[in-house]
């Protein structure tokens, strides 16, 4: 039987990085995710797998270390929380513009500004729509458990290298801090130099005789070249939308009402769904696991089945815009959220649900 260990979501990220053959982690301390780097430093993977772990002087620097490491075809990652992610947005834009693979973990806290260190989901728009300058998308994965934190590191790198695109694991303070049983998957060794040459022939590994020099850049001064590149990115994003959407459904088969929620909110909505079902109300839940690509088709289909949809988020209403676009008028779409680190209870959501749907 696979080994199960009780650990925090943040610790799961670190343990998973070491066990999944990640080559480098570059970070800067920020609450509520500092356990990621602390765990890595404690584990000393440079003595076992050879993984590089480095505390940078800022998030600006750590994301640019990721940029440099990814340019070498290595599996590199960073983690931070909301204000730190804002600082990284320049680098993320360059990474997307240079078509480099990497994994970035955002353990969200409340904002704007310095905000609160309590959990929040208010970086949905920043991470899903872009964040930095220019037309680009990161693939965004939304974990809802410590096990997801562990599993999404490896899945993130798989996607990142498949599409040569940055991947954001969009967690929140609850998922980062909560302790749960985590099943350790089989170890994957780090890639050898030969494997890197095979999976990343574009990498800057030193130019041998007989191949063109590899140049990692996002610069194209010629407008036509830039437009063609933008169209190439668009085609990539369309392909991601076509092939990589992932979601889970709970009680949707006969649902007359639907919750849409991601991350920790989806778990609370599951409990709210149970409460409503006990009262004879046929509620169901769709949890987007990928936020980009967004499960548009599934929400559109369910919008034709249910009487209404409610988007439940720990913010002022960000994902609800995408839910409305997906529902496209097929049914009313409502929203309920809490902010500032306050987390709703299942009873609170059930109550708000009944208010929205005029149910007793």
């Amino acid at each position, binding site marked *: 039987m696979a080994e199960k260990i009780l650990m925090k979501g943040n610790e799961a990220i670190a343990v998973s990085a070491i066990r999944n053959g990640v080559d480098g982690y570059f970070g800067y301390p920020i609450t509520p995710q500092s356990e990621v780097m602390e765990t890595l430093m404690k584990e000393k993977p440079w003595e076992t797998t050879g993984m590089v772990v480095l505390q940078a002087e800022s998030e600006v620097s750590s994301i640019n270390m990721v940029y*440099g490491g990814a340019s070498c075809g290595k599996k*590199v990652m960073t983690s931070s929380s909301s204000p730190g992610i804002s600082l990284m947005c320049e680098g993320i834009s*360059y990474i997307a513009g240079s078509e480099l693979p990497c994994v970035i973990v955002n353990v969200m806290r409340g904002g704007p500004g310095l905000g609160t260190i309590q959990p929040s989901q208010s970086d949905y728009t920043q991470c899903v729509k872009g964040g930095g300058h220019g037309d680009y998308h990161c693939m965004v994965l939304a974990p809802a458990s410590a096990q997801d934190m562990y599993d999404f590191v490896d899945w993130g790198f798989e996607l990142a290298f498949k599409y040569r695109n940055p991947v954001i694991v969009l967690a929140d303070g609850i998922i980062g801090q909560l302790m749960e049983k985590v099943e350790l998957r089989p170890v994957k060794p780090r890639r050898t130099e030969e494997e890197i040459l095979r999976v990343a022939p574009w990498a800057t590994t*030193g130019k041998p005789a007989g191949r063109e020099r590899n140049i990692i850049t996002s610069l194209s001064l010629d407008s036509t070249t830039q437009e063609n590149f933008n169209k190439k990115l668009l085609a990539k994003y369309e392909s991601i939308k076509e092939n990589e959407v992932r979601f889970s459904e709970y009680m949707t088969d006969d649902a007359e009402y639907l919750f849409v929620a991601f991350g920790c909110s989806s778990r609370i909505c599951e409990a709210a769904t149970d409460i409503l079902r006990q009262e004879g109300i046929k509620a169901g839940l769709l949890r987007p696991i990928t936020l980009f690509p967004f499960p548009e088709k599934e929400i559109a289909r369910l919008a034709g089945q249910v009487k209404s949809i409610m988007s439940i988020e720990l913010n002022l209403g960000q994902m609800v815009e995408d839910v409305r676009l997906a529902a496209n008028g097929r049914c009313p779409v409502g929203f309920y959220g809490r902010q500032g680190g306050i987390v709703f209870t299942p009873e609170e959501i059930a109550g708000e649900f009944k208010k929205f749907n005029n149910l007793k």
Partner: protein
Amino acid sequence: MDTLDIKRPENIVYRKPALITDNVMHYCPGCSHGTVHKLIAEVIEEMGIQDKTVGISPVGCSVFAYNYIDIDWQEAAHGRAPALATATKRLCPDKYVFTYQGDGDLASIGTAEIIHACSRGENIVVIFINNGIYGMTGGQMAPTTLLGMKTSTTPYGRDAKLNGFPLKITEMLAALDGTAYITRQSVHTAAAARKAKNAIRKGFEYSHLGIGLSFIEIVSTCNSGWKLSPVEANKWMVENMFAKYPLGDIKDTSIAEKK
């Protein structure tokens, strides 16, 4: 001696380094960049490390350095080259990793990155082109612009009260324990270029000894930005820039001392 004779291999005394590409350089005539590129290409060629070298180009006129030297390149965001170089060297310790940065890139927007790369003692080489001006964006004040020097954002001359003082970042970096070799050179004469090349070579060699960061400042001309002819620009540099930025080694930590 007719043209054919000159082209005979036995008569060639000077040639383009093999690692300089055939791309037409966009640098202005008289600019120091071309010469420094050539010196770097010669060093890499002479050391036989083309397949082990990764260059990091900056934002600034030399953003296109990757078009001219035939090695693998990463093009960094403005000021961030030392962060890219840090990761590249740590993840690929057998590689020779160097950044090529101007004064705006290194001494203004990228001060945090260069200071901490130096402080950590990253085993990389930094080539720092100091011409006291932002060339690519059209001649604005740089952190290294001399007092009284006219630029498009100091049209009446740099005034310490208004714009602060010129930043001698090279001396600052020499104070950091992680730096192995800090020198200031120029390429305005053949003799100076030879010294600069030796300094670059020493930097590349040091970067494989694990003794810390090597930093080679090249005091350079920007005749377009300075609005001087190439000859006048060299003269102005000798008389004014060298007074503030004197040439020579500032720090050379020998291997014995480090051990």
